[in-house]
């Protein structure tokens, strides 16, 4: 597979009044393959949107260069910036951005009219695009009479009508309600299969990103944290931030003594775990609430009791003391322990990270105020 979008040393600096210089995007290097669905995932202020806008050509680069389909489109060194209209992209925005003064047909036909495509071709291609987005029959309707989901479909139809090689999706689902979000996700994937374009998908919603992507980039504070497939990212996060960002996490602070991990505040009972060879004295064991098995106190695992039980709609949550910390465990409703009941917890392949980094948390907080 050829690399279709290549970012080399892409850096973007902003000057803000309150915080001075901010490096919004710090030395991004990545390449997206042809036909791939690649997500930019991160909290607000992580630089994902800025990166997308640089690829689209709305922002200049402070440093670095961007290549699209083998052609250099942005380069700070050469001061070369191909304007957005000449990059041959499709793009869908969070707020739909369908033009309220045009009806559905005119909205979708607009890119073709600009290209001066002849009338019969316009009619044919618009009809095709509308067909694939289930909008047939709504040609003469105005966007204001349509639902959010339908408006986003217009935006999709408008984006695919020119048959672009690359499709940029900027949080296209976050203004939709949860049920519709899932449907639209399937539709986007179906369109991709049909038209075979490369997708860059920007989102702050990890489950959405995991559901849709072949590979994804997790970034934070303007830096790339990890690029990998959703499964690998979820199961083997490279650090505590990625672990926490990709899904509900529980962390247990442990002390390592004689090759055994003792939870803080409970020096007698060790966790039933293989401690990695390179572990420091203090470590964090990271796992996910629904990857911990809760069993009766049969002598295996870590013996403790249920402190609190909370029913949620689709699972039961137990708070279980481990040392001086409360461990969150989630099970299906059918696994029932009552409050105060003795139990044992079992971990399945948890991750190990160095002890907390308070400084990084502070910086993250500061940047989210921007």
């Amino acid at each position, binding site marked *: 597979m050829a690399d279709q979008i290549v970012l080399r040393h892409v850096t973007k600096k902003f000057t803000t009044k309150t915080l001075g210089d901010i490096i919004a995007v710090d030395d991004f290097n990545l390449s997206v393959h042809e036909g791939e669905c690649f997500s930019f995932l991160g909290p607000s202020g992580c630089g994902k949107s800025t990166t997308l806008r640089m690829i*689209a*050509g*709305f922002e200049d680069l402070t440093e670095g260069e961007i290549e699209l389909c083998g052609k250099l489109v942005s380069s700070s060194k050469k001061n070369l910036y191909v*304007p*957005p*209209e*000449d*990059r041959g*992209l*499709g*793009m869908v*925005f*969070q*707020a*739909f*951005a369908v*033009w*309220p*003064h045009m009806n559905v047909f005119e909205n979708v036909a*607009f*890119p073709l009219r*600009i*290209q001066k495509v002849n009338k019969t071709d316009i009619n044919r291609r618009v009809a095709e695009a509308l067909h694939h987005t289930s909008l047939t029959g709504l040609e003469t309707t105005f966007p*204001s009479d349509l639902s959010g989901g339908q408006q986003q479909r217009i*935006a999709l139809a*408008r*984006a695919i009508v*020119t048959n672009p090689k690359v499709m*940029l999706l900027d949080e296209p689902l976050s*203004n939709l309600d949860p049920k519709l979000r899932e449907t639209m996700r399937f539709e986007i994937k179906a369109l991709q299969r049909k038209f075979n374009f490369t997708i860059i998908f920007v989102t702050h919603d990890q489950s959405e990103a995991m559901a849709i992507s072949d590979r994804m980039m997790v970034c934070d504070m303007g830096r790339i944290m990890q690029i990998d497939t959703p499964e690998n990212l979820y199961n083997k996060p490279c650090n505590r931030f990625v672990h926490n960002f990709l899904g509900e996490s529980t962390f247990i602070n442990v002390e390592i003594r004689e090759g055994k991990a003792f939870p803080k505040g409970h020096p007698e009972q060790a966790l039933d775990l293989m401690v990695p060879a390179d572990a420091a004295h203090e470590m964090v064991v990271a796992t996910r609430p629904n990857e911990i098995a809760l069993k009766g106190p049969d002598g295996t695992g870590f013996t403790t009791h249920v402190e609190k039980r909370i029913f949620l709609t689709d699972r039961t949550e137990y708070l279980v003391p481990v040392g001086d910390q409360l461990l969150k465990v989630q099970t299906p409703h059918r696994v029932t322990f009552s409050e105060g009941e003795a139990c044992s917890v079992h971990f399945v392949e948890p991750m190990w990270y160095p002890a907390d980094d308070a400084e990084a948390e502070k910086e993250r907080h500061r940047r989210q105020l921007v």
Partner: protein
Amino acid sequence: MKRYDGASAELAAVDGRKRLNMDKVMTAICFVLLLVIVVIPIVMIIYNAFFNEGKLELGTFVDQIKEEKNLSAMWNTLKIAIGATILGTIMGVFYAWLLGRSDIPAKGLMRALFNIPYMFPPFLGAMAWDMMFNGRSGYINKFLRTLLGLKTMPININSVWGIIFVEVSYYFPFVFMQVVSALERMDPTLEESARIAGAKQRQVIWKITLPLVKPAISAGALLILTTSLAHFGVPAILGYARGIYTLPTRIYAVIYNSGGSFDGIRQGAALSVMLVVVVSLALILQNRILSAGSYDIIKGKSMRPTLIKLRGAKIPLLVLAILTLVLIVIVPLVMIVLISFLKAYGLPLAFENFTLDQYKTVFASNGTIDSIKNSLFASITAGIVCMFLGTLVAYVVQKIRPKGKGALEVISMLPYAIPGTVLSIGVILAWSGRILGINLYNTIWIILVAYLARYLSFSMKTSSAALLQVHSSLEEAARVCGASHTESLADITLPLIRPAMVSGFFLIFLPAMREVTTSILLYGPYTRTLGVQIYSLRDAGMIPQAAALATVAIGIIIVLNTIVTKLTKDRKGV
């Protein structure tokens, strides 16, 4: 949210009989006051245009329509209004785009300056332009004639085009402000997605940006149209003496020439009906257009709009913008101030001809001091009365919702559609002894009554908007916290709309201070207003004195405006 509509009615129903009394009294007061202030004058105009001594008589009306002078006045009115609308709209949109979307420097300053014409009475501007480009004696005209060696004056401001020019320079901010704010609220991704679709910047402007702000443009344009149709000051200053009439100035002429006789007033009433018809047509057009196209173009997530780089055109456009500002804001001001120092009008603008005598005369003259006092009295009183009355009407309409609230709303908004000149005639007809023997003619009260009718809708609008902002849950919260209905009104609702009431007051007080259209027909020997006094001084040929008084008036307006801005900035909450 929908729920609150029902909610407030629900609470009203729960409150039951006890409250109904107070509500009924308030509703009754509204109806009576509006009847007296608004309905009677309007009915009187229509009655007198078509009836004479109780009998239907269409003769006067038909005669007036047939009269050639009136027809040409109508024609001029239309020409001026349409010309000013087209040119003002183009200018307003152009500068709005330049300041809203391009990377032109010094935006904040320019925006502030572009709003200045909004503050000044256009008739003072017309005076200034007349001083410069009067077809016979304008200062710059004379200078240019000598410079270019011409036999005639190069520019004649005393023409239809001159009037259009001056009106444009004062009315284009209507469009400018509407469009700038629409551009600012617009979601930038609407434009960005057009770029992605392959459109060049120029295509984006024509095909996306302008169509999207079209509702704002037409709102501003129609505001220019209706204002210009009813406008008295500029055509009076520039056209009157040269025989160029518009309907408002023609009405004034008819009444003035007849020496205030009843026949003259009846003729005026007939002409008024003509004018009202024209303005109403424009307003109907406005309603049609505005209700047809309003799009939701509000931003999704907050993002700075991408500014369009002007590159090479930046400096020329900046110079153009600055020149425009100098021409329409600074030049007229400087001219008025300069003339105010002249010993006599017509003398060259040289230092040896300057004196402070004009100011001394102005301040020594009883008439002038009276006019300032009269204006202050009438505008402050009108402001205060309208502030309370408007809020009362707004409360009745928004919260009590009695039967006939629609009628109440329409009646209080009616004067908005009626030109000041017309309103004055109605007030004269109503309050010069013909009803209940009440004769207010030649007293300051008749001016006050006219102001009340004219400005009531201003305060009602601001109070209405503020009341809509006060969610019923705020009052309900107070009730649940133990406050009675009256207490929640006094503790929550009134304090919350107080800022709007105050700004409603200033919205009335400021224009009333510089008012000339209405009072020019209503003033008596001792009841000239500031605007009338300036107008009469100039009319009597005492131009430098008029300029001196105009300078004083401008000074007062600037001071008041600064105070208002300060006050409104400090206001709490909401």
